[in-house]
């Protein structure tokens, strides 16, 4: 390549022999069918977050059915069809699941986003600045990490009461600590790269180094981690709901839906199964995508084993 432009000086046949590309340009991410399935499911729920309430046949709080724990495809005269049956309070499960997407997925997403805003900034700052700043941040972070998540959640929620903003904040703080750890690790990895050093040698500010040199290179691994965190947050909020501290009624969230209808299971109602499936479908879908992405690292060579 370069040599062609250099053609003025000396021998001509070098034009035939360009510098060869060292390695074939690295393949861009390609999802397997499982990964694609994951994308479809996640997309579906994301859409439901937006339009759920409008497509749902009933209001999430409508207590309208003839009876509680009605079976799949049962009908209430004058009201309509309950595709997934009804819950303990004679409400339509399908509707509640569709409304619940907003609560469960929406809240989890916001919380994770917030966790990342906090964790990544702090983590990379710690990695870049190092020294006592790193020390302090890390110790405090370790402390938070060492507290059991449920307990931390319980304390905060009991202390400040259970409102949606507080739920989001709580989950964010709890998971920011693990994000911090990862971000810091990647940060330190990248900090030793020559291009970061050359930026420092150029006299760049800390912020330039964080946001222009380090962050873009940590983006990909952090993105996959984001997926997993999202899953954890969903499960965490469900667990809080299990302990009665999660989303408050009448708002439907999948976790508390499972919780509230568990009794139904004792005589074979599927009422708690549907929301559980909703949770599973969402979390599994995300994991499928993440697995697909991270499968790119490693595995290939393993297939060469005999």
């Amino acid at each position, binding site marked *: 390549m370069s040599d062609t432009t250099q053609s003025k000086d000396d021998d001509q046949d070098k034009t035939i022999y360009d510098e060869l590309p060292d390695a074939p340009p690295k393949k861009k991410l390609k999802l397997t069918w499982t990964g694609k399935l994951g994308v479809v499911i996640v997309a579906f729920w994301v859409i439901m977050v937006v339009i759920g309430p409008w497509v749902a046949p009933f209001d999430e*709080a*409508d*207590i309208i059915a003839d009876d*509680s*724990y009605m079976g799949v495809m049962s009908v209430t005269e004058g009201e309509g069809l309950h595709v997934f049956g009804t819950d*303990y*309070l*004679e409400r339509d499960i399908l509707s509640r699941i569709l409304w619940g997407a907003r609560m469960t997925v929406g809240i989890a997403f916001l919380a994770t986003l917030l966790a990342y805003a906090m964790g990544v900034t702090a983590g990379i700052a710690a990695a870049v600045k190092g020294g006592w700043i790193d020390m302090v941040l890390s110790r405090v972070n370790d402390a938070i990490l060492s507290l059991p998540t449920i307990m931390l959640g319980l304390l905060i*929620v*009991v202390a400040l*009461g*259970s409102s949606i903003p507080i739920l989001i904040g709580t989950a964010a703080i709890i998971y920011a600590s693990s994000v911090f750890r990862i971000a810091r690790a990647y940060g330190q990895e990248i900090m030793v790269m020559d291009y970061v050093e050359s930026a420092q040698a150029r006299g760049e500010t800390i912020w330039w180094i964080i946001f222009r040199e380090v962050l873009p290179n940590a983006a990909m691994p952090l993105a996959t981690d984001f997926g997993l965190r999202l899953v954890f947050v969903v499960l965490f909020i469900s667990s809080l709901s299990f302990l*009665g*501290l999660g989303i*408050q*009624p*009448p708002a439907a969230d999948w976790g508390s839906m499972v919780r509230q209808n*568990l*009794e*139904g299971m*004792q*005589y074979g109602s599927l009422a708690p199964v549907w929301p559980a499936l909703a949770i599973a479908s969402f979390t599994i879908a995300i994991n499928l995508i993440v697995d697909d992405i991270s499968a790119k690292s490693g595995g290939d060579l393993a297939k060469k084993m005999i």
Partner: protein
Amino acid sequence: MTESKENLPTINSLSGADREVIETGLRRGANRREVMSWLIAAGASIAGAGAIVTSATEVLAQTPKKGGKITFASDLHGPSDTLDPALNTSTIDYSRGRAYYNSLCQINDDLSTRPELAEEYSANADNSEWTFKLRKGVKFHDGSPLTADDVIYSMSRHYGEKSTSTAKPLVADVKEWKKVDQFTIKAIMMGPNADLPVILGTPQFKIIKDGTTEFQTANGTGPFRLTEFKPGQRSIGMRNEDYWREGANAEILEITAITDKVARTSAFLSGDIDLMQGLDPKAIKSVESTPGVGVWSVPAGGYFGICAMTNSSPGNNPDFVRALQYIQRREKIVKSILKGQGTVGNDHPINISYGADHCSELEQRVHDLDKAKFYLKKSGITQAEVNVAEVAPGMTDIVLLAQREAQKIGLDLQIKKVPNDGYWGAVWMKTPVNVVTWNMRPTANVMINLAFAPDAPWNDTLWKSERLGKLLVESRAATDPAKRHEMYCEMQRLISVGTDDMPPSGMVIPAHRNYVDGKSDKIEGIGRMPLGSLGGYEWPEFAWRTDV
């Protein structure tokens, strides 16, 4: 169902409610024909009905068997579990109290009283002085005999600044406890009170050994001796062999708690525990559909209340309160939320369970959106916030239901869910609109006195009706039943409807709930006294296993 020859249904195959009808019927001495006719009316086959009645009569006729172990799981426990009767607040404590201690008087299923440690007791003409004669030869578990001093000491713990007794107000009107001789005590009252024996039958007034301050163990006179006590875990008792009367049937009594209601129900369904307290209405279907276990449901006066504080908006606006009362779908609540295990309320605390004191003349308020709309318009209020904690299973759902109805009449009723713990301290009687639940009290008088008397510390809505106060005192002295009934009726009307110059109490009481508990078919001898779970906590002494 319990194994029964040729698969005919038995008494146990009936739902708690029906079963209760039959058994009470038979107890009251209704003859076999009558009962069968009810059953057949209820759609049972002749043979079936016959079988049921037989089994029912058998059950009632059966003489208790001795031995075996009975396991009871309550709903709440923790480090705060205590063996100090004066500090008892929870079912688990009350039940334990019954197992290890005795009271002076014992309350019957119909809320009349019978002698216990006091072999006889009587009042003077105007019920202002009560005399209790103690049973002789009663021994505490440490062998020491029961004397008047023990009683005086036990009672003294409910008086004075230092006292942390939870039942102080109940005996506030006893001026003095006087020791007459080793076995006689006098209670000198400030005013007349016909109900003292019933009050003394309530859990906090158990008799402990004179001078006891340590409650790591229970040194009582009760049917069981405590062998193990782990707060928040369990307690074990062995039968007290030298008990002063017939005594317990079970050999071993384990009292524990399973806080999570689903877990508790599972444990009950799978036979790990014989008796469970607090069956969630949601679970009734599954209990009834599971063989070997049944619902033990006792109608009672305990109620759900929505409290609109009368000292602040919107509660100080009677029309708003009326609107709130008319949007209540009372039947729906009983059917859907309580799953039938309750009775509709009429916005006052005294339901049929209080027998004669209940005012049946007072017209039952029903769901009426037009009236509701009318009063709401009149009140001019369009928005309100209710602070809700799940103080009793179903509370939240009741408010949810109200919220939906409120929408229909253009009232934006917002729900603020607050955690149970801390509710009584931080929310109840402090926020403009909140919720409350009361267990049934031994007498209508006590009930109203506690929650509605103008000077009552727990007046849910700070509603001050001097008239009511006056009636309360007078009614205690009333000896003529008709007169008494009339007084109670007026009180109930005041609370529910008010008068032209006195607004209603601000309480919305849409439903009264039964005590709904779980009982294995292998356990009999559970009473129906409506002042608490499983027959007013009376069971430990009388319950027995059919399979020993």
